[in-house]
């Protein structure tokens, strides 16, 4: 079975631009969460989605938004990019919103110049 897949794997943008990151969960998983990992830190929670509804949001500005599609895949959008948005963006999936564990993808490495 395929794991959580994310695209693209690497991305370079300039300040002020917009970016869209994509995630396909494990087959049968209905919940997708997004995490941001800055170099030297642990992953930080951004969003949780379940059945196309936002179920949780972390302490991130409104420049960050996401959505989930009927096939349970998800997009993370970041507007007006700042240098500080440079990070590894991780997508995680689980069957339900409250699960013992999350399965993570390999992430999208975003560099903002």
């Amino acid at each position: 079975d395929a794991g959580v897949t994310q695209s693209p794997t690497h991305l370079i943008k300039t300040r002020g631009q917009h970016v869209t990151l994509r995630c396909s969960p494990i087959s049968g998983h209905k919940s997708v969460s997004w995490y941001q990992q800055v170099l030297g830190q642990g992953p930080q929670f951004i969003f949780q989605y379940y059945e196309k509804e936002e179920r949780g949001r972390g302490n991130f500005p409104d420049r960050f938004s996401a959505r989930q599609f009927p096939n349970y895949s998800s997009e993370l959008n970041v507007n007006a990019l700042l240098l500080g948005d440079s990070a590894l963006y991780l997508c995680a999936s689980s069957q339900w919103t409250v699960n013992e564990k999350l399965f993570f993808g390999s992430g999208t490495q975003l560099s903002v110049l």
Partner: protein
Amino acid sequence: DQQVKQNSPSLSVQEGRISILNCDYTNSMFDYFLWYKKYPAEGPTFLISISSIKDKNEDGRFTVFLNKSAKHLSLHIVPSQPGDSAVYFCAARISTGTASKLTFGTGTRLQVTL
């Protein structure tokens, strides 16, 4: 306000010996604690977890201990193997009936030497 702390950024252990990774937390609302392992250029991989109502969980070479009164948990790896060399993240879960999120520590880099 860092609610989950891993105070040792790195640890070096000889092959065959025990590795002990530590984690402290501050929020009493955490209901599950998890350990993830991360290799470079890969996402975190789930290793082992423990419910907040238990004090020990074992899975093969990996054992997690939880001391709720001290708000401390530890991961024991016995015996350590070179393939265990990776960054280990401690994570704590907060959940409601309809949502949950993980709060991660900053990680401990484990190096298992020959």
